[in-house]
């Protein structure tokens, strides 16, 4: 039986479109058929833009017919996390407070995707304001892991991960503040890239923690990650923290071999709390990488244990500030009050969910007079030290290898009432945001229960290409990324 176009990767779809064995309209229709078939079980999306997507697809086909095609993304259906602003399309951050918010502008990454000819399928679910690791904090209900519908897809970009894993999009964009691309990629068997801070413009990404946030791809393989990163990255006048990139493009730079690369593994990563199956899978990845010419060495990151505490001071502090604007005055949900203060209180009480409130309270507290030095300032100092640890490690290594998550996907509800347990699922990912480096998650095995396991590669600042090169070569000799989840009703999208 012929493979459904919905199951293609970007580069496979691009090849078929180029060969004219497939049109963008056919591809887009196949994706929406697949969405209709599995979305009731998966709940990856918050908003679908089918009509517009088909119009974009038709436009892409016309460009191709006129030989004006714009490259590998032209005509390819891509999903967007619902914290990326889309002009005229609701952007809710999975929060009731933004339930009716329709941005008057496109995020820079959206503008760039459109310019590359990508077809936008819709907006995907997330933990409210990206606060969480499971999508259970979405005000509109959790997404489910296509590999096991009783389990979480991870978060906060869980909707994007579930959509791609379930073939409800060819690829997707997510955002990563402490692991929000990488953890769901690992839990859903995808490749996910957190680019170097500054590489991708944040303009139009509804901010969680501005000094940590970075937009990146979730895709079926590493090659697709490179294609998407290349389309969205680069300096943007609208984001002062974006950087002018030099040298060859990531797709070019990630093409070569990995002979002689030195990869470090921190002993602190393999301690207690790491699931034996995950440990075995990550360990197992060394064999093919060694065959490809990499050497491994043990390193130490003594401050690793402080990463999570630092993160839970810095991130909520910035979040409490970024979320101050949601007050019912200008847009979003408003609850009337007898006076302005009461209106603020009622609107915010009704509009925010429990985890969001928890982080606002935490962040407000650590920034308060009398506590700032003890918490926020100290966290900033520790963050600088942590960064130095990583920079030192990356002097003698070209990349670092770690587990992506301590366990495979957990059950829905399993950690929902225990925020600390939930926070621990990001233990391997948060430090990368704190130090601003790039990191790539690649599938490296499955648990006995058939759940995907991911490994994480961490690289030097702005050397995202080396990670993509390692990941792509690894995927040349492994097939973890080719497996498809056994969704009950795969409709005509089945293999």
């Amino acid at each position, binding site marked *: 039986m012929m493979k459904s176009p919905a199951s293609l990767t970007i580069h496979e779809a691009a090849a078929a479109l180029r060969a004219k064995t497939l049109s963008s309209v056919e591809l887009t229709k196949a994706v929406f058929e697949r969405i209709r078939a599995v979305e009731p079980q998966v709940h990856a999306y918050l908003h679908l833009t089918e009509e517009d997507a088909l119009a974009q697809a038709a436009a892409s086909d016309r460009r191709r017919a006129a030989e004006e095609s714009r490259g590998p993304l032209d005509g390819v259906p891509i999903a967007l996390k619902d914290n990326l602003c889309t002009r005229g399309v609701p952007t809710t951050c999975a929060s009731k407070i933004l339930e009716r918010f329709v*941005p008057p502008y496109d995020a820079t990454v959206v503008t760039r995707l459109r310019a590359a000819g990508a077809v936008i399928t819709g907006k995907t679910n997330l933990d409210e304001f990206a606060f969480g690791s499971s999508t259970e904090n979405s005000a509109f209900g959790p997404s489910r892991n296509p590999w096991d519908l009783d389990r979480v897809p991870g978060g906060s970009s869980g909707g994007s991960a579930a959509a791609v894993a379930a073939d409800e999009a060819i690829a997707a964009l997510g955002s990563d503040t402490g692991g929000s691309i990488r953890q769901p990629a690992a839990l859903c068997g995808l490749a996910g890239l957190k680019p170097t801070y500054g590489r991708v413009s*944040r303009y139009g990404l*509804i*901010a969680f923690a501005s000094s940590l946030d970075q937009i990146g791809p979730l895709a079926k393989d590493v090659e697709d990650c490179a294609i998407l990163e290349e389309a969205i990255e680069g300096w943007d006048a*609208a984001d*002062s*923290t974006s950087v002018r990139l030099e040298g060859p493009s990531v797709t070019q730079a990630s093409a070569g071999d990995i002979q002689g690369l030195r990869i470090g593994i921190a002993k602190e990563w393999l301690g207690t709390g790491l699931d034996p199956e995950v440990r075995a899978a990550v360990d197992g990845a060394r064999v093919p990488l060694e065959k490809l010419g990499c050497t491994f060495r043990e390193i130490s990151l003594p401050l690793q244990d402080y990463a999570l505490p630092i993160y839970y001071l810095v991130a909520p*502090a910035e979040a409490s500030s970024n979320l101050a604007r949601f007050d019912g005055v*200008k*847009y979003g949900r408003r609850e009337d009050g007898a006076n302005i203060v009461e209106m603020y209180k009622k609107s915010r009480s009704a509009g925010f969910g429990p985890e969001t409130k928890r982080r606002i309270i935490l962040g407000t507290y650590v920034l308060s007079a009398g506590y700032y030095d003890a918490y926020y300032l100290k966290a900033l100092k520790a963050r600088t030290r942590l960064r130095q640890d990583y920079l030192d490690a990356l002097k003698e290594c070209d990349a670092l290898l770690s587990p992506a998550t301590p366990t495979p996907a957990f059950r829905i509800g399993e950690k929902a009432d225990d925020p600390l347990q939930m926070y621990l699922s990001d233990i391997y990912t948060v430090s990368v945001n704190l130090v601003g480096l790039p990191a790539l998650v690649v599938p490296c095995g499955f648990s006995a229960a058939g759940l995907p396991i991911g490994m994480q590669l961490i690289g030097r600042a702005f050397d995202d290409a080396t990670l993509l090169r390692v990941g792509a070569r690894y995927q040349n000799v492994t097939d973890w990324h080719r497996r498809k989840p056994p969704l009950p009703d795969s409709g005509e999208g089945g293999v």
Partner: protein
Amino acid sequence: MTEFETVIGLEVHCELSTKTKIFCGCSTKFGAAPNSQVCPVCLGLPGTLPVMNAEALERAILVGLAVGCTIRRRFKFDRKHYYYPDLPKNFQISQYDLPLAHDGRVDLAGAHPVRVKRVHLEEDAGKLVHEGAGQQIATGTAALVDYNRSGMPLLEIVSEPDLREPAEAVAYVKSLQTLVRYLHVSDGNMEEGSLRCDANISVRPKGADELGAKIEIKNMNSFKSIEHALTFEARRQRDALARGETLAQETRLWDDTAGETRSMRSKEAAHDYRYFPEPDLLVFTMDDARLAVIRGRLPELPWTKRLRYVQTLGLTDYDAGVLTSDRTVAEYFEATIAAGAPPKTACNWVSTELLGALHGRKLGIGDSRVAPRQLAALIALIDKATISGKIAKTVFAEMLVSGADPDAVVKAKGLVQITDEDALVTSVRDVLAANPQSVADFKAGKSQTIGFLVGQVMKATGGKANPQAVNKILKEELTR
């Protein structure tokens, strides 16, 4: 009875007149229709980010340099949090512990210098408009927000508590107004709110080292209200202390209509602004080269100019003050002397005749139809005795209307002064013949009669006679 001393420190806010706002491309033009100059960035819409307006930054540094501050080589911006509907993000991007300029001073003419603690740059908030009766919050039916002002670049200049009198405070704000106008960085207009001022005022026994309870006064919207509010507040505090009361730190609002200050919030109710470094803007670095370029934009400052006018041009301090209070006036004056006019004469013409006439027509010096070169030419005509000072005023009045050169006016109207003594002798003799009584009076010792006779000759010559020449001939004729 204890003698009290008032201590005043000022926070002056000055909106920079850059073409665009501080973090976006919106226009800063004053008076546009509400919410017509807004975009996602200055509305603080989710996902938007600030991008620094380089010109705003340079202007801020320029002011810092002008008030003698040290410019920080590395400075950052911080978020200042408080909830108010005119503040779209519910935080203001400002500068907290590392302002771009610090430790300067402003020299007030005739008074002691005022130390400037810091100069920093921030974004302005929008404006609330109250609908309904009286357009007041208390009686209104709705509050509307106009975000046109949101994101206007705002400079804050904070003084040390070096001012002792309300009048000094006004003089200080005026000198800052003059300065920002000199630098062409702001309109400095209090009526339009591009120059605003809050005061910290306390009262203490004279000679005490410690400051009294700091009371902040807000809502002073004109020079008059600054003076009235501070005068009221100083008296209120003195009276309270004299009655044995203790004053507590608080913020008070000046009510211009009622002529009094009223408590707005106590120290306990003060905001915790939860400052932290703005993560969306990088740390700014200022190197020597860039600083030198900005320094190159500094014109001669008003107080330097004033001193120079006194010391090297020989003007009185008062005249120098009038001429330097406005950069365009000073420039006009300087252009006039550059065209050859003697400084003192030029000063009189500019400050009295020109400014007086323009003021009467509600015009600025930029609207003058008389160019400095033409004014210098007019003064030269007087000095060469081609026309008298009196005729010159007539010529000047004509020049103001037509913009014509003085020579042309003199020629066209036949106003050339009669200095030819032969021509004048006839007129003098005619006048003497017609006024025998005055001649007799003069000869009897009433020397002041000569004034009357000069007047008669001037009248007879239609004002064109050279008065000095007439005087001389009259004396010769009378003593003959």
